[in-house]
């Protein structure tokens, strides 16, 4: 399954790119599982996801939790807690 990933703020800085298309291996069911898999892809990913509890995620531009199933997501974004306003 091919999904566009987008990274923002220091998640983007640590990974070193704003987005990428990845082929998610079978067996990855939830957003949390996707983070664990991403963290295993190299030092920069391990750094970005070293504390997955604080990373927020959105599927197709809607906030989701770590236990949310990926389902038929086209775009999944990871970012730190928001600081707008």
């Amino acid at each position, binding site marked *: 399954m091919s999904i566009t990933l*987008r990274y*923002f*703020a220091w998640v983007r800085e640590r990974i070193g790119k704003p987005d990428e298309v990845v082929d998610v291996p079978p067996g990855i069911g939830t957003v949390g599982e996707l983070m664990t898999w991403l963290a295993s892809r190299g030092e920069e990913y391990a750094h970005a996801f070293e504390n997955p509890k604080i990373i927020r995620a*959105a599927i197709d531009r809607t906030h989701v939790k770590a236990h949310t199933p990926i389902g038929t997501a086209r775009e999944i*974004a990871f970012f*730190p807690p*928001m*600081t*707008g306003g």
Partner: protein
Amino acid sequence: MTAATTVRIQREGFDAAAEAARLTRGRTDIGALVTFTGICRGAEAGEPIEALTLEHYPGMAEAEIERHVAEAVARWPLMGVTVIHRYGRIAPGEDIMMVAAASSHREAAFSAAEFLMDYLKTRAPFWKQVEKAGATDWVEAKAADDSAAERWVRPAGRDAAE
């Protein structure tokens, strides 16, 4: 009641006063107008800053804000709501964002403006980076903002993603 709503995400500055005035002009059903303007301060935690840079998630930022404006309109009898939020580099003294809420009575206007601010702080996909003497730092989210936002959550699990 139909509320006139405006949501804009933009790099350029805006005129908060003119935007607020636009909500009430030519109408005689509005009795209360509340505006909030967020301004870039020249110091953060006691240290002078050179600028803020706001990163955002294009597309999602608009959608999230529009969703919360629609929720405000559903919860309070509002006649108009405007939310403008900038991204990019912002110098001290410049406006970062604004919220304006117009209603026939003050309670609705105040509640809607505070609700939108609390949600914008915690749910709108914007991230502030501070420039200090050449170095940059991402602003950390405040737990106080999360608890401020929680006071608006209604019992029935209306936000399944939470």
